[in-house]
Structure formats: C-alpha cells, structure tokens
C-alpha cells in the first residue's frame, strides 16, 4: 500500500518546520504537529527528511545527498534502502510529492 501514485520521476519534498524533534539516545523522536503522530525515526529516516526539506529530489537524486548527510558510502547504504525509506515516510505523511513535480 502506498499513500498514492508515484514514479521514478516523482520529485519528493518534506516540511521539517512542522516537525518537533527530540533526540533521545540514538532515536529521533519526531512529533508531527499536523497529524499529531509521534514517530521514532532512525538516523536514515531523519536524514532523508532533512535532505528533502531543503530541495525537491527524485529517488535517484536524493541518494547522494542522503549518503553525504549520514557520511556513508553506497556500499553501506544501498539506493534501494533510501527509496524504501522515502516510501515509508510517504506512507506516514512525512514526505509528499511536490505539486506538479512529475
């Protein structure tokens, strides 16, 4: 189940300003002021949100920026993992396709 239609060309965006984030140990406890949901995010999800908050990206174009943010090589964090993370965040309503962004 996805939150809606998407393709490899979809440009994704996030709005970090509506999130309240408290770091406890290695978990980013993230409160979404719009949905009222509390999410426990790992560092990869947190990095994806950060990257998509500062610019629209496709799955492919997001990957190098996310890897740079978390300081990892593609061998440690494959692109497929980043795509899955974006889709999970889409499902939670934390990232959305940019309007007209096909």
């Amino acid at each position, binding site marked *: *189940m996805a*939150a809606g*239609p998407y393709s490899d060309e979809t440009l994704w965006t996030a709005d970090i300003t509506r999130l309240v984030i408290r770091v406890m140990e290695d978990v980013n406890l993230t409160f979404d002021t*719009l*949905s009222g949901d509390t999410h426990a995010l790992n560092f990869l999800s947190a990095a994806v949100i950060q990257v998509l908050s500062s610019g629209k990206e496709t799955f492919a174009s997001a990957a190098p920026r996310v890897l740079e943010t978390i300081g990892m090589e593609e061998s440690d964090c494959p692109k497929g993992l980043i795509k899955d993370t974006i889709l999970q965040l889409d499902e939670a*309503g934390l990232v*959305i396709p940019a*309007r007209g962004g096909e």
Partner: protein
Amino acid sequence: MTKAWLKSIVRQSPLPSDPESLSDLVAFAEAHHVLGQMATVWQNEATGKLKDVFENAAIRTAFDHRMLAFEMGRIERALHGTGIAPVLLKGGAYVALELPASEGRRVADIDILVAEDDLEQTENRLKEAGWAFEETTDNEYDQAYYREFMHELPPLRHIRRRTVVDVHHRILPRTSRVLVKNDMLIDAAQHLKGRELRTFQPVDLFIHSSVHSFADGSFDTPARSLVELYFLFSGLSEADKSALAERSVTVGASMPVATALWALNEFFGEKVPGVGADSMIKPASALVRGAFRAKLENISGAYFAKLILYVRSHYLRMPIPQLALHLMRKAARQLVNAVKREDPLKSQ
C-alpha cells in the same frame, strides 16, 4: 428556553449567572456539539471552572482541525497526478478558508465532492491508498443502494488511521424532490491557493449548508445547524447577502434556503433580505417549522416529530415505491438482527 440558550451560545445575550442554569446550558451545548463555538466566543470572559471547561473544548476542536488538515493532504496525495481537485464540503471548507464558522466547530468526518465522471477514479485511488468500505456497508445491497439512490459513496474509512471520508458526487440524492444544480455549484468553486483542493464560493457555502440542514430532512443536529448557519451568514459580505435569494433560485435551492433564513430570523432575529410571500422565495411551511422546533426543544411531542421527519426525509430522497421497498428491507433487517441478539447460540 432553547432560544435563550442559543443566543447565549453565539453571544447575542449574556451567560446565565446561577451555576445550575449555566451547568445545564453547558450540558446542552455539549450534547448538541456546539460547546466549541461557545468556548470560542466566550473564552476571554471565562474564569474558574468555566475556563477549564472551555479550554477542554478548545483542545478537542484543535485536534479535529489538525486531523482535518492532515487528512486533506492525504486525499490530495492519493489523487496526485489525476488532475482531480475535490471540493471540500462543510467543516472541511470552513477550516480550510479559516471562516468564523470554523472557529470551535467539531469535525468528525471529511466530506468531499467530485464530479460524477471522476467518481470511479477517486474511489479507486482512495482504495489504493488505504481507504476501505466498512463491514456494515460492504455488501451488495448497501453498495447498490448508495450508488443508485444516494448522493455519496458509503463511508470510506482509512484502515490504519481510522479516519472517514465521505465522497459525494451530488449535493442531494439523485431521487430527491429538491433538485439542486450540482454543476453550477461545482463550476463556481474556487481553488485553495497552491492546492489541488477547492471550496464553494461564499454564497454557495451558505446555500449548501442550508440544503444540508433542511433539504435532506432529518434535522439530526438542529442546534449545530443553526449555529453554523448563524456564523456563515454573519460572515457574508453585504453584497453576498443581497445576492443570496437570486442565487438560491438559480441553483434550485430556494426551499431549503428559505427554511434556513426563517430559522435565522426566528432564533437569532437576523434580518434577511429577499424572503416573504411576495418575494422570490417563499417562507418555510408550518409543518417544517413545527417539526424543527420540536426536534430542537426535544419536547414531549418529539417522538411524533421524529416520526414525521423520518418519513419526510425519505420522501424527499426517494420516489414513493422505492421508499416502501427500502423501509421494508430496513424493517426486515432489524428483525433479523433482533432475532440474532435474542438467540446467542444460533448466531455462533
């Protein structure tokens, strides 16, 4: 009594000073789902326990509005790329437009309207994104009944978030005696800035609220309807107020709008242009007025009033032969359920 209470709720008259009356008024407002509106207009004056009670109501409303805003985004997301821009109805529209009528208003479900041609695609997209029919309506008879005679799909509930969307393709059932020109309302709808969502223009918001309260006949939430109409009406510009009568005739909603204007005058003393025996729209009938009063006051004749309204409401929705058939089916189902309840062994 109720008239005085309604005036206090919208702040046309002061709050009662003795605790017992105030307590009864707050209970009335809560039971009729207008405590939030009352809390909004009185929040600066409230002290002590009343302040606590209002604060409590404000928190609930804030939750409803957040939920609504989030779910609007989810619907937009599910329809991404289809070019369908649904019209937000009722509370959804008031909240999105930040109208006075939204302040303190409780919202339980999201109502959207799409053109009939877009209905199938809307339904499919929402289902793909996790909305589903509830068990109670996911059967052939209910599905056929809704699709053939009603103006909306059966409620769609999101399987994870449990929120409900009502997808309308008409303002009123196809079989209704009141024939509202859906296309005219949809064509005049306006996009929300930067969103794939629309709302009716201000006059049409009032017209639709009147239709919703008075044309589909059940008067289920009379106090809530009145308070909503009051704030919608006070929020209209003078130009909009003057245009109301003509527009309601044009879109085929003069009957419910007349009833709404009668009610505003009756309960809040609002002076409304364009109603009367000689004018464009005729005032509400004595039957409707009596039934509405009875429902609101919940007086001893209310059972009788409810009976009138039940038949009336279905009469408005359906031609007579279908009505008889539907009532028979409904009665038969109630009987079956009653038998099931009486005999626990059989139902296992």
